[in-house]
């Protein structure tokens, strides 16, 4: 049976409830041959992989875990579209593999019953057979196969058991007949579906698949009614309502009829095929939950785990960050030496490398956070964390599902906002997205570290255990969290009014996280972060560089250099030996070295002064001077204002900008002692009064804590909410809060200090 058909890739869709081991199965089948793509217009990621069975190529599509194929959002619609081969997606898959958790067949078969109506060949993979046995379940796969009339393959995906049988069945299923409709519904229902199908397909070029007509009938107020492009027009909607009315009168109201009918069918299928031993044994998960999900002990352990995670992030990332910082510094030094002076060199060194460095330098922290989150999710602990935090969250109008996104935002708001996809309630999700940027992220930490090290005295309490500096750092983090609570409450009472959402979540059994899948997830998330946030931050750093560079009036430089011309001449004269004099003795040699070092230092000082003067003349500098009166009440001078403006697109930029403006050149970083010293010594123009003191430092920190200075976060908010309104709102409210906070911090601080 050879021919062109044998060369065509077979597409297989992988579908199943969450926590059934679907990703494990996907990885076991495809290994490294997997990739992530995008479905247009939605936030769901397209995960595909390849494998060869026999000599035929197969492509596997991993659909997101779901409990049912009743679409409630554009994201859930994607799965339905892929399975039916509608819209922009490729043709319907050749085979659908439904993966079920063998210890929870009742619920898993609900999804299977919907899958059987899609008109494609289906294979049922019964995973976690070992756990089912532990639970005291006896399963008769043969009987299930008879009743369902589809292949049934028992598996243990994490041990690789049953994979060969699954591949066999996949091969055999290609081109097989689609399962005969299992008809779980009463006759009345089928009649209404048929009637509605005729009405709907009148005047349509391609008829709607039967499954979609069914969904129209069943999903009262569901996504299909408002889908874009519209599936339902007024006339069709009237027919849908009429059909629902008739169903209700017959005693089978939608949507309740679906759960009743399907679960009755499931019960009939499972009768005798699944035998549960009477005594329910305590599983290992149950024992763990007695402690981990305990209201008191569980909460304590949870707090400890969180502390551990954050401590590790900062401790382990530090050496990596230092290393990266040094590497970037070395690279820019190299390029500065090699490239001729001019716009291009400045662009590359001060713009691009500064930007890239800014992103790379806190990549270690983000990756470590991703790794922890992936491990905690894989092992099942995250669900318990959501349960434990739900009490607090519900008091501010959210639910436990908001916890992980907000936690992630402490490293970086970009993955945090993306993680809100797990929150089904639209209002809930939006509130979480809007307060996520208030969680102090890694970039802010750099600002805090610099200012605390420079201005907060290192006083210790409790015999050295507690330090004022540490307390201040903690206070900054708490500030963001506390303000977030208030903002959430206010939002819930005004713009985003609504019911506190109910909270339902499955607590999966605990399992050991597989290092392979954790590594895979960290790699994916890290790459996606670099791609999205990274590229934007670099682009923005270049823009900031441009604002701080142009107009590059060479007269500025000339004026400064001519001022130093005499000094330089004198030094040069001393360095050139007089004719006839030979530098014989070591004293003369030492003197020479000291003088050439002095010359180098002078040259460096000159170029720093030039750089500062250029910045003062630049658009950025002018903007700083323009807002100087505005920021005066916060205790800032125009230079701080300038650096803050520069930091608006990306916070990281503030450190190097401060360095340039205060005449230290652009290579300053958080740990530079010279930057600390210089900031301490800086004075107001034309006076002896110091700019920086504790209240000023506090007001800067408070401003940074509360301000939305991150184009990447705003961009991801736009992506996830599909509108410009919300990122704009976030920007406005946070900037306003930040200004107020900085103002209060300075004025109140001066009251105490002054």
């Amino acid at each position, binding site marked *: 049976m050879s021919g062109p058909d044998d060369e065509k890739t077979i597409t297989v869709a992988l579908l199943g409830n969450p926590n059934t081991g679907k990703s494990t199965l996907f990885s076991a089948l495809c290994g490294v041959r997997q990739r992530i793509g995008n479905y247009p217009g939605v936030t769901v990621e397209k995960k595909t992989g390849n494998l060869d069975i026999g000599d035929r190529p197969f492509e596997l599509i991993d659909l997101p875990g779901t*409990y049912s194929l*009743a679409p*409630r959002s554009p994201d859930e619609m994607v799965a339905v579209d892929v399975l039916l081969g509608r819209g922009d997606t490729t043709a319907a898959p050749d085979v659908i593999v439904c993966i079920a958790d063998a*210890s929870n067949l009742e619920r898993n078969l609900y999804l299977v019953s919907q899958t059987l109506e899609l008109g494609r060949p289906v294979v049922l993979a019964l995973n976690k057979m070992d756990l089912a046995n532990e639970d005291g379940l006896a399963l008769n796969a043969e009987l299930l196969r008879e009743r369902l009339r589809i292949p049934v393959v028992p598996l243990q995906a994490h041990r690789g058991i049953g994979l060969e049988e699954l591949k066999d069945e996949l091969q055999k299923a290609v081109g097989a007949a689609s399962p005969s409709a299992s008809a779980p519904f009463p006759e009345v229902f089928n009649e209404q579906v048929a009637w509605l199908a005729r009405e709907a397909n009148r005047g349509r070029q391609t008829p709607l698949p039967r499954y979609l007509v069914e969904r129209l009938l069943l999903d009262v107020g569901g996504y299909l009614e408002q889908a874009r492009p519209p599936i339902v027009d007024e006339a069709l909607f009237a027919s849908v309502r009429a059909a629902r009315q008739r169903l209700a009168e017959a005693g089978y109201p939608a949507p309740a009829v*679906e*759960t009743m009918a399907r679960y009755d069918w499931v019960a009939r299928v499972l009768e005798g095929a699944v035998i549960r031993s009477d005594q329910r044994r305590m599983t290992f998960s149950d024992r763990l939950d007695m402690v981990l999900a305990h209201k008191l002990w569980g909460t304590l352990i949870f707090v400890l785990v969180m502390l551990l995670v954050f401590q590790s992030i900062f401790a382990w990332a530090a050496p990596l960050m230092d290393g990266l910082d040094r590497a970037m510094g070395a690279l820019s030094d190299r390029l500065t030496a090699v490239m001729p002076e001019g716009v291009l060199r400045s662009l590359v060194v001060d713009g691009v490398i500064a930007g890239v460095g800014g992103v790379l330098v806190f990549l270690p922290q983000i990756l470590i956070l991703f790794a922890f989150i992936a491990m905690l999710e894989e092992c099942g602990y995250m669900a318990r964390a959501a349960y434990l935090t739900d*009490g607090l969250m519900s008091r501010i109008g959210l639910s436990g599902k908001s916890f992980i996104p907000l936690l992630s935002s402490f490293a970086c708001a970009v993955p945090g906002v993306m993680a809100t996809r797990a929150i089904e309630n639209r209002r809930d999700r939006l509130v979480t997205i809007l307060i996520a940027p208030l969680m102090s992220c890694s970039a802010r930490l750099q600002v805090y570290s610099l200012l605390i090290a420079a201005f907060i005295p290192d006083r210790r309490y409790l015999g050295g255990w507690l330090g004022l500096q540490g307390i201040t750092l903690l206070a900054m983090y708490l500030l963001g969290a506390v303000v977030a609570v208030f903002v959430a409450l206010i939002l819930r009472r005004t713009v985003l009014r609504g019911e506190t959402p*109910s*909270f339902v979540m499955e*607590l999966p059994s605990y399992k050991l996280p597989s290092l392979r899948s954790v590594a895979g997830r960290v790699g994916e998330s890290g790459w996606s972060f670099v791609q999205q946030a990274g590229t934007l931050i670099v682009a923005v750093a270049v823009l900031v560089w441009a604002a701080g560079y142009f107009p590059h009036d060479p007269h500025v430089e000339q004026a400064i250099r001519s001022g130093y011309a005499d000094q330089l001449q004198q030094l040069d004269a001393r360095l050139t030996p007089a004719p006839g004099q030979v530098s014989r003795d070591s004293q003369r040699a030492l003197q020479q070295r000291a003088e050439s070092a002095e010359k180098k230092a002078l040259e460096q000082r000159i170029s720093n002064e030039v750089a500062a003067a250029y910045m003062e003349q630049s658009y950025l500098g002018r903007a700083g001077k323009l807002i100087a009166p505005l920021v005066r009440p916060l205790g800032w001078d125009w230079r701080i204002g300038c650096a803050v403006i520069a930091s608006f697109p990306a916070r990281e930029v503030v450190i190097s900008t401060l360095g340039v403006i205060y005449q230290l050149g652009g290579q300053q970083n958080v740990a530079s002692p010279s930057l600390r010293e210089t900031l301490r010594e800086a004075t107001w123009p034309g006076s002896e009064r110091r700019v920086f003191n504790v209240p000023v430092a506090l007001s800067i920190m408070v401003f940074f804590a509360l301000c939305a200075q991150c184009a990447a976060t705003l961009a991801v908010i736009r992506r996830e909410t599909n509108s410009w309104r919300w990122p704009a709102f976030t920007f406005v409210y946070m900037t306003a809060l930040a200004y107020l906070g900085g103002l209060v911090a300075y004025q109140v601080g001066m009251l105490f200090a002054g």
Partner: protein
Amino acid sequence: MFELIPLRCLKSGQTGEVDQVLGDPQQVHRLQELGLRQGITIEMLQSGSPCIIRTAGSKLCFRPNDALNVLVRPALRR
């Protein structure tokens, strides 16, 4: 004869049979898809808000609100 009580009144360790799932139809449907539906037996593992219950095959945590509630018929203790 056997009274119906809301789920949150079930005590830790008690079992009961779900009699009704009430509230906003979409959320009710969602809860039923998760397996929490009329006629099943559940065991209350940890009461409170949210509570942890065990259904036939899974453990769920659940916090009801005005838009969603579950009425159960508690099993008699023998």
